[in-house]
């Protein structure tokens, strides 16, 4: 195994930098591109039961330290998804993100998509879709039920993606762990709003959305730190990772792998190589032989 390679939930990744769900990952060509550009794995856009168009524009607001988005979970539905991937083979781990309104819907999707997915990530955390995501995932008992239902429906590893929009994210993490989740990932976006002072109204057509990017990093890092201290299962760190220093901070805080989202827009696809090279240099300079050695060092 190379310096940057990791084994997580039974899957080998060339490096710990995974493309986050919802970031330029609608079609197979984009997943392949992400891998070509240096991502160690890919999480797909969240897939639901029915096709959805998503919300009307404006769907994003650019801020000095990140973005607020309310895309509205546009996706082709599970049938469209299966048609779309037919004939493709991927030489990197493909994690399929799914969302549903009930444990049964999640389980149904996992069953239907098990052939395609190397693992599932459960979107229990999108802050702007009525009846989905965070509206379900803010309650530990719901997280437990959904994870359990999905674990019963598939043999593939299951990652519960958690929302930071709660008093104590470890309650959600523990619920996922007890239900048999193979890992948790955190964070999804922080519920947020932006108002235009001249239009005197919220900018997003959906009014509220989710905040991501450099501005959320300290909050995300704290969530990962708390989860890693509390859980036995691995934690995948997400939220504002833009530089190699950010990435190393998350690893030290106990993240076994990382996902990168908004930084792909801020820095371009080259962000994967930039961060990988930075981590490698750091390992060399600090006398570590593998990225696996630094996971959780700041927890002690």
């Amino acid at each position: 195994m190379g310096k940057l390679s990791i084994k997580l939930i039974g899957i080998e990744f060339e490096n710990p930098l995974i493309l986050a769900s919802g970031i330029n990952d609608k079609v197979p060509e984009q997943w392949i591109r992400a891998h070509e550009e240096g991502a160690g794995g890919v999480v797909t856009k969240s897939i639901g039961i029915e096709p959805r168009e998503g919300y009307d524009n404006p769907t994003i607001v650019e801020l000095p330290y990140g973005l607020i988005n309310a895309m509205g979970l546009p996706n082709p539905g599970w049938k469209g998804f299966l048609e779309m991937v037919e004939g493709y083979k991927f030489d990197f781990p493909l994690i399929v993100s799914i969302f549903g309104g009930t444990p049964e819907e999640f389980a149904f999707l996992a069953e239907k998509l098990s052939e395609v997915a190397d693992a599932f990530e459960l979107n229990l955390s999108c802050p702007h879709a009525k009846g989905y995501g965070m509206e379900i995932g803010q309650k530990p008992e719901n997280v437990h039920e959904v994870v359990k239902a999905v674990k019963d429906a598939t043999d593939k590893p299951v990652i519960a993606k958690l929302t930071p929009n709660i008093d104590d994210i470890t309650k959600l993490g523990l619920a996922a762990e007890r239900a048999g989740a193979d890992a948790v990932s955190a964070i999804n976006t922080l519920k947020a709003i932006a108002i235009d002072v001249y239009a005197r109204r919220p900018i997003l057509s959906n009014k509220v959305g989710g905040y991501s990017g450099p501005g959320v990093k300290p909050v995300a890092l704290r969530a990962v730190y708390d989860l890693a201290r509390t859980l036995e299962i691995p934690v995948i760190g997400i939220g504002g990772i833009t530089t190699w220093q950010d990435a190393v901070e998350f690893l030290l805080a106990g993240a076994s792998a990382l996902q990168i989202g908004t930084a792909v827009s801020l820095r371009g696809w080259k962000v994967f190589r930039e961060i990988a090279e930075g981590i490698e240099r750091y390992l060399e300079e600090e006398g570590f032989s593998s990225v696996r050695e630094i996971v959780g060092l700041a927890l002690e």
Partner: protein
Amino acid sequence: MYRVVEVVETWEVAKDVKAFRFSEKFDFTPGQFVMTWLPGVGEKPFSLAQRDLIVVKKVGPFTGALFRLKEGDRLWIRGPYGHGFERKGRKIALAGGGIGIPPLYAIATSWRKFFESISLFYGARSKEEITLIDIENYVDELILFTDDGSAGKKGFPTEALAERKGEFGQVYACGPEPMLKAVLKVMNHKNVQISAERYMKCGIGVCGSCNLGKYLVCRDGPVFEGEKLTGLL
């Protein structure tokens, strides 16, 4: 973030096509676009025709609302975004069709002095749909076609381009996709840059809705070197 601008001038360019000049000038490269928000209506992409000018064809609800704006009304603009044209060639050709003129207008008006000559091959469905703005004042030659022969020659501009392509160091094209495909074919994907369109939402390379093969039109494009599009267009 948005820059709030005022419409300072608007005029009719062709049937269902209007130009909007606004109160602020944006630094841009020809081929780049802006996202334009009308609160309560929507937000859509438009190419900059000049630092302070967009030229719009009315095709639906958003462009319909834009057409009702009067001088002094506000527009919310973010951008410019995307990869624009690269300045190449001494003797160049512009190939345009229909409402594809705005980015070519940007080339002709902002880069005129860098080229030895500019030849414009332009096609429209009929006389009343010719959307040249006043680009004829900035090009050395205009070769005009209409599908029905109501103005210029009857036929397609790509036919004339095919006969003369050897004269040009670079061809810059924008227009309906069948025309772009024809231009790429004529040029064998070489010495040509085209401005493509796909459905855009974020405009900043994060949502993935504007994909053209593995590319993001809002980020890798909208302008692409012909060679990059081999097998895609």
